[in-house]
């Protein structure tokens, strides 16, 4: 815990618990935004020496992950004005417990490997794994379509955190492409959310089960 990076990463872990526990979408979005900001800042502390391009790119990432993406979703909710809360598949308290278990597991699991470059950052890998799985969890445990999208973003953040520390860093252009893809994806999802709201007048995915055998 002697690294500044680890300090903020621990906050990220907290934010996971928070996002599991919060029943209200706006707070969920805030949590995700926070994660976005953190994961895009991490590279500043970690590993590779910073080039000018690196700095610029970090700012761009910050802009997109931390502000634009959450904003899209926020706009979406604003437009559709969720009236009633959608009951999750896994309740909030259960989710919190699951979150705790998850974090413990992630830390335990990540002790197994020692990866070149990030050896000294105790929380980097655990956080990444935790974010990844947390996203998956949200995707499976929330019937609210918006929550699911947020889960997807969480996942993306996790993957970014893993990627942030390896050779991928070398080529910002590629990174940027990935970022754009994610952004576009989220935008399209936002559009779909609006359409869902308009056609079904609800964001409960339980209503989206007509196509089956």
């Amino acid at each position: 815990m002697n690294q500044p990076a680890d300090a903020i990463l621990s906050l990220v872990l907290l934010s996971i618990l928070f996002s599991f526990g919060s029943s209200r979408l706006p707070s969920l979005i805030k949590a995700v935004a926070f994660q976005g900001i953190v994961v895009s800042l991490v590279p500043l502390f970690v590993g590779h020496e910073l080039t000018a391009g690196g700095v610029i790119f970090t700012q761009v990432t910050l802009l997109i992950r931390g502000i634009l993406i959450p904003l899209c979703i926020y706009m979406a909710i604003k437009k559709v004005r969720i009236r009633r809360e959608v009951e999750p598949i896994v309740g909030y308290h259960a989710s919190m417990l699951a979150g705790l278990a998850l974090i413990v597991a992630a830390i335990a699991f990540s002790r197994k490997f020692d990866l070149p470059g990030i050896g000294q950052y105790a929380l980097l890998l655990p956080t990444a794994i935790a974010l990844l799985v947390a996203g998956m969890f949200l995707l499976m445990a929330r019937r609210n379509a918006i929550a699911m999208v947020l889960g997807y973003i969480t996942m993306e953040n996790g993957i970014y955190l893993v990627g942030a520390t390896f050779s991928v860093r070398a080529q910002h252009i590629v990174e940027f492409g990935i970022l754009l893809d994610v952004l576009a994806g989220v935008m399209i999802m936002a559009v779909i959310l609006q359409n869902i709201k308009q056609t079904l007048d609800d964001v409960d995915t339980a209503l989206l089960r007509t196509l089956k055998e």
Partner: protein
Amino acid sequence: MVELVFIVPLVAGALAFFMLGRSGRPLLVLTGAVHLALSVYLWVRRPEALLPGYFGVTPEGLLSLIVISLLFFLISIYTQTYLARSEVKSENIFTGSMLLFLSTMTMVTLSDHIMVMWIAIEATTLASAPLIYTHRTGASLEATWKYVLICSVGIALALLGSVLITVAMDVGGVTSALSFSSLTEEAKRLDPTWLKVGFVFILVGYGTKMGLAPMHTWLPDAHSEAPSPASALLSGVLLNCAYLGIFKTHKIMVAAGLGGFSGMILIVFGLMSILAAATFILKQTEYKRLLAYSSIENMGIIAFGTGVGGLGAYGAVLCLIHHSLIKSSLFLTSGNLLLGYGGRLISDTGNLIKEMPRTFVAFFAGFAGISGIPPFGIFIGELFIILGAFRAGHYVAVGLFLLSLCVIFGGFAHHAMKISFEESPKAVEMKESITLVWPQYGLLLTSLILCFWIPDTLYQTIIQAVTTIGGGF
């Protein structure tokens, strides 16, 4: 120069979004033609890319590219009449997305960089999402939702996989570019464990997109909800693009001497997909879903063949090409059925041979072809895969393979007979104009010709592609 092939449709697509009314239609055909010309040029000259390391001309890429190009051209012709006959809201979005879709898929076939490949494949998802939502119905909305979310999640995993491959690089101390070509050269030095993990993630990720069971769940919904030309593209070439990702990674695995591992995984997933397809083909009620599941089956067959390697891999590539040709023709035909009978249930159809004789020819030929009956190419592909599998000694696997093929044929033939010969619930008054049948005929004829005569250059390309994954004979 290479990049031009996907830049052209990109620009055209962007343009199309602003072309109101039906003015976009000619642009489709025009771009298709130009694209075809460019791809042929690429095929002949095999030029260097402007951004080597990011893009590059590979044999497997060329194969997919030429198929995409040909299909898109014919489909764009069909689309003219289809759009005229069926009411499509905001046509400009449709045409625009079609073109963007084409551009992104082309990018997939030309990308040599792991991440660029990922970007392109994710982009295909985004570009095709509006196509599925064309009809603006609740069902199509649901399909789009599932398509985008499931595929994005899957592909996110593929991204993780790609990242893990870079981990394998760092652990192995490889400091080459992230391009498939250089990785294949360096493969031996990559860290095997991380490489395996990476492959697993990539397989599951791109497998989701390719429609391998159990990640196939989005496929029948999307393919049945999209308008037929779009379904034809989705089923005909999008799946190939996803397969390309797996193929290239498998290439690295083989080069790293882990071919056995990846091959076995491919065989298992292939069998699972075939079985899943059999499950849902047997009692299918909608013909477009039927075709979608048959796509899953064929993807399973291709994965199986790739996993088997040797003669099987060659057969797999043949199956890949012919499946694109035949399946897209079948989807276009399903468009005719929809226009003619007005319902998507198999029970709405019937007596096609009398109601729409020309469509019947296309339909039944397509059915025979997709079931692996000559004179269509899938036959030869399956033959090679089966023989190859026996040669490789996977007796149990190939036994399951054959049995499930029998089951699938039983189910598919049952529906095909119903559609073609049983009494029709209502009389059909639809003019089978040339453009509604000849694209299919063109595709089928291509498959028929390729079953008996493969141009030498094509053959050489296939062999080049196949040998890299330990194929050949």
